[in-house]
């Protein structure tokens, strides 16, 4: 058995052609995560390029309105490029550079990971190619143009369901074609080992900052942490530092689409079953013969039929809870947060906001809820308008 298991989940289920590349990555990551020079360079970039630490903002008006727990937002939306994705991308691009790679490739769903990868490639002078489902390209045109502005080449993926899962397939295929000079910047806590561990480590800065900021602002740890989960990188980043604090509830909010009792859903924890796909053993939306289901969510970033293996393990052990949030609930939360706090969240993050709206009123006023605002919503404005029956040009 390979390394990189979380309970029964994880592993390295990839073609032989990629094995040496993945093992080389594993070794390089093991080395550089302990290398003070590498860590100093990464911290420098996170502070001076991304703008970390990101704010932990007390949403006073929303807390008053919901009349329950105090709600704090971890403002990953204020990062350079507009989401948490940049934390992981800077780490991987720096690592790829140290490994002598000159080209990076990546999948993207909503486009945020693609934009972050294109940004890091521009900064570090690397060639960059992004694979994006044709359907997502149509949903997220602005982000496509943004990636091209940054010097990346964007490939439309027309196989399968033409969304995030197919973009991952195509990026893996491209990696088997050309692996010697190329690093695959995987965007979430998924795929073969070491990606789930490495991406979680690069994102865990979110939770470490929350702990410190919470102790400064409230003098204690929060009662619950909320984050949206597609593959699960912003959630793992927020949760990781608190796994050993059993009194802190960890809640992942997955995309239910039109509802978990319909076929148009992407809620893997609620509707999926164990499987082995995209390099990992975990939970997947699939039929009884193991054919991966064509999932659906209004959010291109959560429109994925699997979930990272560490989340699968947190669910198995009962350490984290996972709740489904529908399109309707997410869109309402998107509008609510815009009006109530003057913050337009990414539609992905709006799934966690929707969950907070339900949870906060049931909690005491002395309790504290932290919601990861993983990205900003500018990219979603036109799609939400369409959802509400209004046609506006992007």
């Amino acid at each position, binding site marked *: 058995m390979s390394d990189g298991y979380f309970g029964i989940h994880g592993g390295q289920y990839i073609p032989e052609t990629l094995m040496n590349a993945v093992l080389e990555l594993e070794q390089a990551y093991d080395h550089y995560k302990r290398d003070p020079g590498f860590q100093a360079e990464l911290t420098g970039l996170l502070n001076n390029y991304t703008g970390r630490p990101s704010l932990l903002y007390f949403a006073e008006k929303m807390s008053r309105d919901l009349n329950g727990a105090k709600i704090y937002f971890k403002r990953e939306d204020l990062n350079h490029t507009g989401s948490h994705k940049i934390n992981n991308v800077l780490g991987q691009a720096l690592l790829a550079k140290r490994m002598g790679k000159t080209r990076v490739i990546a999948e993207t769903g909503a486009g945020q990971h693609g934009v972050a990868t294109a940004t890091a490639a521009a900064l570090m002078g690397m060639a960059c190619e992004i694979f994006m489902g044709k359907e997502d390209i149509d949903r997220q045109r602005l982000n496509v143009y943004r990636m091209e502005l940054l010097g990346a080449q964007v490939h439309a993926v027309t196989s399968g369901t033409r969304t995030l899962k197919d973009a991952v397939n195509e990026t893996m295929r491209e990696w088997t074609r050309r*692996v010697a000079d190329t690093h695959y910047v995987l965007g979430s806590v998924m795929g073969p080992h070491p990606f789930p561990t490495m991406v979680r480590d690069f994102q865990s800065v979110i939770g470490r900052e929350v702990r410190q900021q919470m102790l400064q602002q409230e003098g204690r740890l929060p009662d619950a942490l909320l984050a949206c989960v597609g593959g699960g990188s912003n959630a793992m980043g927020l949760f990781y530092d608190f796994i050993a604090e059993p009194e802190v509830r960890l809640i992942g909010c997955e995309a239910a689409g039109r509802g978990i009792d319909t076929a148009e859903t992407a809620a893997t924890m609620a509707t999926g079953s164990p499987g082995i796909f995209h390099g990992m053993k975990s939970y997947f939306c*699939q039929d009884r013969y193991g054919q991966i289901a064509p999932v659906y969510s209004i959010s291109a970033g959560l429109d994925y039929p699997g979930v990272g293996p560490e989340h699968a393990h947190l669910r198995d052990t009962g350490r984290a809870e996972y709740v489904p949030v529908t399109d309707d609930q997410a869109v309402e939360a998107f509008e609510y947060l815009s009006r109530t706090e003057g913050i337009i969240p990414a539609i992905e993050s709006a799934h966690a906001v929707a969950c907070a709206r339900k949870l906060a009123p049931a909690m005491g006023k002395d309790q504290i809820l932290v919601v990861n605002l993983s990205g900003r919503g500018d990219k979603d404005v036109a799609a939400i308008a369409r959802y509400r029956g209004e046609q506006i040009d992007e």
Partner: protein
Amino acid sequence: MNKLQQSFSNGKAFIPFITAGDPSLEVTEQLALQMAAAGADLIELGIPFSDPIAEGPVIQAANNRALAAGTTTDKIFAMVGRIRKSSRTPLAFMTYMNPIFTYGTEKFMQSCQKVGVDAVIVPDVPYEERAELAPYCAKYGVTLISMVAPTSNHRIRMIAGAAQGFIYCVSSMGVTGVRQEIGSDVEQMIELVKEVKDIPCAVGFGISTPEQAKEIARFADGVIVGSAIVKIIAQHGASCVPYVVKYVQGMINAVK
């Protein structure tokens, strides 16, 4: 002599691949029987998967056609049972881990034994994860085929050491599909395997012409051809059988 040894006992082996259920299981059954009659030494049957990450566009499309036609693992087992009534040519399943795992790995291998599938090739299970399959393969007498790739380098020793039946040598980088040029590394790859173990080596990925097949057969024990056959099936649909058989005969002549 087990059935896989039989595949490599009649000179160089020719190993055609088709996706089961493309365009229908009835056609797959005919193709398998007639390719066997034409002298194919081992037939690879692909169990279609929604997301075949090691395949190029040609076999991806075949997977989609087969699934759209309602092909399932159970129906494929039933078809193999029918093939086995009149043909003893060795058969291997080629599929991905998820269809096997979701079916139940033990139940899958038990069914292979029951209907007479001799081997499985699972491209997303590398050496490190073979424990997922190997115990069940051993229990039900199904040979787990190992793959080596142009990037395997020092891993070849380890992979060959544990290999059974034959070794599937991936000729070049990337996914399946017809190629103009086959990499020259594959000959060296086979030499490395043979240093460790005297086991047949069959080469696949990219081979389509009799000239290429002849050249590969110079140093390999077998030649695997998939995309070129699947292309003929895509072109002729339900009436593809005679066209495929003619192509396969030509390839067998080139290899032997």
